């Protein structure tokens, strides 16, 4: 691979993977919680929460990036507090992960919510009558049964994170070795004379990674579905 890609390109690929993996893993618990809450709980403001969660899907990514900059920039509301703790997100690769996580969150929650909703609530009731409290019921029954949807949601979020451009470049710019991802690197290369071969190589890598992720999730889901066949 290193022969195929220049060191700079290789850096962008590794950084993209690092950002996408961090974004996916860090948003996973929140995504599962939000999906379960939307699928099972009734609480005031539920519709509003659902709408807010889908917001990143419908507003321009640049706007999301700009809002992140306002909130998490060095002089931002949260940025200042985090800076005191020694955590810097703006113009930092972790900031790119945050931007990617937020952009992928609606996709993640949607897939997971659907699979939680598909679980027969009477299975959870049965677990209750057998003595499992709600938390154990969640981990022993709901979560395993929702696994295909959780895998699907995580894959979507991962793929979205790999391709994230607008919010990322607005929030953390396009600094080689720090915040330059495959997407922003391709953007840079096509602006430069003679950059086309590099842009094309990165494009192929991006397609390969995305394809691998989708195939892997397909296999995991198929295996899960086979096990749950005739689940009623």
């Amino acid at each position, binding site marked *: 691979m290193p022969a195929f890609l220049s060191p700079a390109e290789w850096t962008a690929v590794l950084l993209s993977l690092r950002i996408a993996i961090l974004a996916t893993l860090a948003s996973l618990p929140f995504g599962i919680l939000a999906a379960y809450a939307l699928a099972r709980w009734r609480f005031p403001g539920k519709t509003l929460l659902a709408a807010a969660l889908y917001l990143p899907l419908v507003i321009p990514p640049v706007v999301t990036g700009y809002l992140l900059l306002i909130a998490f920039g060095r002089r931002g509301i949260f940025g200042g507090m985090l800076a005191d703790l020694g955590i810097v997100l703006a113009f930092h690769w972790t900031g790119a992960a945050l931007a990617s996580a937020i952009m992928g969150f609606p996709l993640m929650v949607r897939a997971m919510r659907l699979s939680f909703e598909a679980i027969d609530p009477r299975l959870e009731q049965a677990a209750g009558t*057998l003595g499992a409290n709600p938390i154990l019921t969640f981990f022993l029954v709901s979560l395993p049964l929702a696994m295909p949807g959780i895998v699907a949601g995580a894959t979507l979020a991962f793929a979205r994170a790999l391709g994230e451009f607008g919010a990322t470049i607005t929030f953390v710019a396009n600094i080689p070795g720090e915040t330059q991802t495959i997407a922003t690197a391709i953007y840079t290369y096509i602006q430069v004379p003679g950059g086309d071969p590099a842009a094309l190589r990165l494009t192929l890598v991006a397609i390969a990674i995305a394809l691998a992720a989708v195939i892997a999730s397909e296999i995991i889901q198929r295996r899960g579905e086979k096990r749950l066949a005739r689940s009623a």
Partner: protein
Amino acid sequence: MIDVDVARRVGQFSLNVAFKNSAGITALFGRSGAGKSMTIGLIAGLARPDQGRIVLDGRVLVDTEMHLFVPAHERRIGVVFQDSHLFPHLGVKQNLLFGRWFAPRHERTLSFDAVVATLGIGHLLDRAPAQLSGGERQRVAIGRALLSCPHLLLFDEPFAALDMPRRLEILPLIETLRDEFKIPIVYVSHAVEEVVRLAAWVIVLDNGRVTGQGDPAEVLPSAASEDPRFGGASVLTMRVGKRDAAYGLTELLHPSGTIWIAGPAGAESACVRIVVKATDVTLSAAPPRGLSVQSVLAGKLARVEAAGPLAIVDIALAGEGRLSAMATRRAIDELGLHPGDPVFALIKTAALDERWVGGAG
């Protein structure tokens, strides 16, 4: 001892049920929509009553006045649902052990091996629920509920989804549970024969209210005849007589006569209850001769109730008990039968077999 007194309203339907009982198997009997399953849900803690109290063995599970509600997972009440609701992501063995993990160690009184042996599911342990037949699934569900070592076992029409042969396979198991594991059971059913066979006490529900309760032999005939869906049926308490091994028949004795049934019916001189459908009874004004029917009970005509071209005839049997027969109104008029007249009830043996017979326990 279970003591229930609850009210709940859902939409147009209002449930208002009170009963208490300590006998082995209590049956909740009634047509669908009578509130049976809702009552089970309230006992199990799957729903909250608007008002009322549920006490099990002195432990208050619900008391709306005291704002007390013990959640389902702390009640230690096992439920066998209509559809087994086995966990599809777990194997049979893990399903069986699911409730056991949560039972306090000192309360795990039932041994895994004994339950598996009784239910005959040893060969299924390594399978997935999706690979089981309906009857097998239901047996595993019973095992799963049992192994949580519950203080009370609720059956919510466990056979509704099963065909008759599968029911016949599982009904004796429930009798075994009752006799062997000594767990009190509340059993929901709309099938007369199941209730007669299993229950020592029956509570009849209709439209959210208790309309009768007592010994099945006393309560069921009137409950059944009020509901045309049952087509009228009678419950007779009889004594097991001789067995005719050559023909595979068993004699059941009653002061008013003898019934032969196909198949075994229990030990000789044991007391059994038997359900006789009104449509399986033929009437005769004189002692019958030269017929293939060999089961004849004698009695007096008590009442004739017309229902269109048909009539339901109540017969007060010699000795004790009542029997309902269904006949056309014309046949009754042509026989010249009037209340008080002696009458002979012919019961077709082929219509009766062991599934209609239950211990009078």
